[in-house]
């Protein structure tokens, strides 16, 4: 029967081509939007795995609330079950931008804790920070590419300090001592400098943005996170699982928005399949009547018509994936030169796109197929 399906499709080349194009456009949107969502999923996943063993201790009001004094680090470190704790400072590299998605960040960390924070991340150039490094920095791979920097080069960092009603911008060159490999995490957009230098440069005194607490290997991080909250005043904690849950939630919302826009486009493509199939079934009324008179079962007619719709869907899916991937490849290579990557096409996304396109074809073909299968053979044969 498959040869008959192919024969029918190739008989009406322009119409079939246009319908496939409609589906392909929808799937193109699914690939581009889905690729963006997948990239964020992957980035956050890898990023979390880099810090998944640590508890995040934040000031009570969160990032934008009160600041966290570095003395709290010692308090946290004293709690039984905490193997180590250190302050973490962050500020946007460009003070004019808030730097949420993909923005470059200045990260302040105690040099001796870098190994713990970055875990097994390797360097492609130079070395990590060591104690005593002042205005020196280790760059994330994206930042290095964006500014075309190598070990030994200098990068200008600006800080904006509030002074009465106005603000003054300071700037200073930092020497690059090392460049990290690509991690898929926020560290790729990080400009890591020693914590004490950061506090001085940004005029933050002894404060940090958050504290990272490393639990003992045999301590339950969930339990420890609660104990930290109880023992240290005016802090809130995010255990690794809470952090994962929170990020997952925001990712789901982001994915829902992007994917639903793409799905809408694909559904419009699906309607074009339905339209084409209805026309095709109507044109072939007599043919179906004849097939029934020759003894075709309802399932034979259903298979032929739905198979045709499914094939249109699948072909649309394949072309959509090819087109979407080409655009994503082009955009990614352009964005890479700008220091960021925005899309990731995963095997999962391709499987979902193909399955979705085929399913869409089948669903859109169901009603026309039902109409074809339910025709009375006599009436169909008389149809002109």
């Amino acid at each position: 029967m498959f040869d008959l399906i192919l024969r029918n499709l190739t008989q009406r080349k322009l119409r079939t081509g246009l319908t496939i194009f409609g589906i392909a456009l929808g799937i193109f949107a699914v690939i581009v939007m889905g690729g963006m969502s997948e990239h964020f999923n992957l980035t956050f996943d890898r990023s979390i795995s880099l810090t998944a063993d640590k508890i995040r201790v934040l000031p009570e009001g969160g990032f934008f609330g009160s600041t966290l004094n570095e003395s709290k680090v010692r308090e946290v470190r004293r709690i039984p079950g905490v193997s180590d704790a250190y302050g973490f400072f962050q500020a946007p590299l460009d003070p004019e931008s808030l730097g949420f998605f993909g923005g470059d960040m200045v990260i302040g960390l105690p040099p001796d804790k870098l190994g713990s924070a970055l875990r097994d991340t390797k360097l492609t150039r130079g070395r990590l920070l060591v104690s005593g490094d002042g205005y020196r920095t280790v760059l994330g791979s994206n930042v290095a590419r964006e500014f075309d920097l190598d070990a030994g080069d200098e990068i200008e960092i600006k800080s904006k300090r509030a002074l009465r009603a106005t603000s003054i911008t300071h700037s200073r060159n930092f020497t690059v001592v090392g460049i990290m490999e690509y991690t898929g995490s926020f560290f790729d957009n990080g400009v890591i400098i020693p914590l004490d230098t950061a506090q001085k440069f940004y005029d933050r005194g002894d404060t940090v943005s958050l504290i990272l607490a490393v639990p003992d290997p045999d301590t339950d991080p969930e339990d420890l996170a609660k104990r930290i909250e109880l023992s240290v005043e005016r802090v809130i904690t995010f255990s690794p699982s809470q952090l994962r849950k929170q990020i997952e939630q925001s990712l789901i919302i982001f994915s829902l928005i992007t994917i639903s826009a793409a799905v809408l486009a694909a559904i419009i493509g699906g309607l074009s399949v339905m339209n084409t199939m209805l026309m095709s079934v109507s044109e072939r009324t007599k043919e179906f009547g004849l097939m029934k008179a020759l003894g075709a079962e309802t399932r034979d007619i259903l298979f032929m018509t739905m198979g045709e719709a499914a094939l249109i869907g699948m072909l649309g899916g394949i072309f959509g994936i090819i087109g979407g991937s080409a655009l994503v490849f082009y955009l990614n290579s352009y964005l890479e030169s700008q220091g960021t990557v925005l899309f990731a096409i995963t095997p999962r996304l391709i499987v979902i796109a193909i399955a979705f396109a085929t399913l869409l074809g089948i669903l859109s073909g169901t009603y026309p197929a039902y109409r074809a299968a339910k025709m009375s053979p006599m009436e169909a044969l008389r149809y002109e």
Partner: protein
Amino acid sequence: MNDIEPVLQVRNLSKTYMQGKIPVHALNDVSFDVEKGEFMSIIGPSGSGKSTLLSMIGLLDKPTSGSVFIEGVEITKVKESDAPRLRREKIGFVFQHFNLIPTLTALENVDIAMRFARVPKNERKKIALELLTQIGMRDRVNHKPSELSGGEQQRVAIARALANRPVIILADEPTGEVDTKTRDMIVDLLKGLSEEGHTILVVTHDTAISQKTRRIITMRDGGTASDTISH
């Protein structure tokens, strides 16, 4: 007549259509038997009920009352789901307008009837070639209907009707769209098939055809007006 069971038995067959609120009696208490290998024609003016009768026998339509038996099976009582199997196994259709599928070649048009009967591919090709050779279309097997003359198309349609070795072949005005020379050739072909043992029932208003059949049933106003057998 012999005492072997007839292949086709039509018993008190009636069909009433509703045209709006007015009942139209298309068939009225028709009964007859057809023996195996018979070559018979049903003639009558337009609207006499010939085609309606053929639709009932061919399981394309349901009668209002009465029964049709093919090889003793009451086909008018079978479930809708069993109808396709009976159409495949018992009945071969030949239509006035040939009704070949335009996108398929002659060979594929014969082949498709056997696909629905789930005949394996190799066997289908073998049978289709044999049948097309038998009707003199061996060198036209790869031509599409648009590349064939009316007579050639009808011959392909006859080969298709024979493909599943049906009990009875129902031909509805098989020469309605061909010239007289082709008409004679098709009638001779059908006659030859009946001599080989095929049971063939032709609906026609062309007396040139009916004269060549051994038995003629004449219909008028939905009923049988006469049933004559020539010797």
